[in-house]
């Protein structure tokens, strides 16, 4: 049915002309579904991503660091809200997305299923995890779907603070006492590989990527973005005097890029399937927060209803 829809021609013309597709435009079901899936997962990632960092707010080493971390976690909440709004323009409701996340049917980025064991992990999340996210999100500012692309512009502006504050934590630790240096190195050792996994499976196995590229939802491949991230980050690690935990890492002058070792895809798929160190705890915590907040939502609704004279 959709194959011959008159809107298809216009949809394809918009993509070809590098124009944005907006909510009221006709779009193929597959395009809508791919975007809902991707934007919902992106929103859930921002929201679940508050947990590993929130874990350190009460133990931040100084008041300044605590204020910065609170501002960052608040930003992540905001990013989740911008993205839920973008997904809603495609016809799914906020409540459905929340329910599907709580039931474990919607996923979020596997990176948040790793624990934050030391203060250096907060540095690593900002520097590496947000660094990887920015690499991806800068590409997404050119996504063909207008509401998603606009959300990304706003998010990218705010994310650069996140990455810099993370690098500053790493820089302070790596210039500190031997124990602080060790802590920084231990953080890098644990976060390096999961950060590379954030870009997803290799292009050779990423069957749905091609369609996303044709629809201009995605503008660069997983492997291209991963390479870009490695090339940007390795010199930063060198500046910090920290060793990237990859014996195969070396500069390839011929390619003009760093070569790097094989990613442990078994670990990657295990975490995606729910067997990472923190999968269960993250969802349990999210559900508890939602349930404990029920009375607040009900009170706000009741107050609004009473003021407008309608029944609750």
């Amino acid at each position: 049915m959709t194959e011959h829809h008159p809107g298809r021609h216009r949809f394809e013309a918009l993509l070809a002309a590098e124009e944005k597709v907006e909510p009221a435009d006709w779009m193929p079901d597959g395009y809508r579904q791919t975007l809902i899936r991707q934007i919902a997962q992106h929103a859930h990632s921002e929201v679940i991503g508050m947990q590993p960092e929130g874990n350190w707010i009460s133990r931040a080493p100084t008041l300044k660091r605590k204020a910065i971390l609170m501002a960052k976690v608040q930003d992540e909440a905001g990013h989740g809200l911008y993205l839920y709004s973008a997904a809603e323009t495609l016809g799914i409701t906020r409540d459905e997305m929340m329910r599907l996340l709580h039931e474990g049917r919607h996923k979020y980025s596997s990176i948040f299923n790793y624990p934050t064991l030391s203060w250096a992990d907060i540095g690593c999340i900002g520097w590496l995890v947000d660094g990887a996210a920015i690499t991806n999100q800068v590409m997404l500012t050119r996504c063909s779907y207008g509401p998603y692309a606009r959300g990304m512009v706003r998010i990218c502006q705010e994310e650069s603070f996140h990455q810099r504050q993370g690098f500053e934590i790493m820089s302070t630790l790596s210039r500190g006492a031997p124990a602080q240096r060790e802590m920084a190195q231990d953080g890098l050792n644990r976060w390096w590989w999961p950060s590379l996994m954030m870009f997803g499976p290799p292009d050779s196995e990423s069957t749905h990527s091609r369609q996303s590229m044709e629809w201009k939802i995605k503008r660069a491949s997983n492997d291209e973005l991963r390479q870009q991230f490695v090339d940007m980050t390795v010199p930063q690690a060198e500046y910090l005097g920290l060793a990237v935990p990859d014996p195969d890492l070396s500069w390839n002058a011929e390619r003009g890029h760093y070569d790097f070792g094989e990613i442990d895809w078994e670990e990657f798929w295990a975490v995606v399937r729910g067997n990472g160190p923190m999968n269960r705890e993250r969802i349990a915590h999210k559900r508890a927060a939602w349930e404990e907040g029920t009375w607040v939502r009900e009170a706000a609704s009741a107050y609004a209803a009473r003021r407008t004279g309608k029944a609750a």
Partner: protein
Amino acid sequence: MSYSVPRLAEERDTDFMPQGEGRFSGWSLWEVFIRQRRGMSHVHAGSLHAPDAEMALQSARDVYTRRGEGISLWVVRSSDITASDASDADSLFEPTGDKPYREATFYQVPAEVKWL
């Protein structure tokens, strides 16, 4: 892609299509407009859910103005906005395309004439 999760064989596509189940506590959707500084108009920034206008304003402040983005906010219930139909765009806006005489650049001004 960093924040998207690769597909698993057991993943169900229907999970990502609107089912129309449930509403966000019955809270309306509000559109948020921000005036960046005096002398400028309010510009659309995004949307949010809230039970009433007062809470919509408070949430708009938290969600959309964490970095001095503006000095004034408007919140408007999304359902109160009447929008033109995208498919009417041609009939609504096309006629201006063949009226170049509405633009100053349509008119030739002799080089020696000043202040025109």
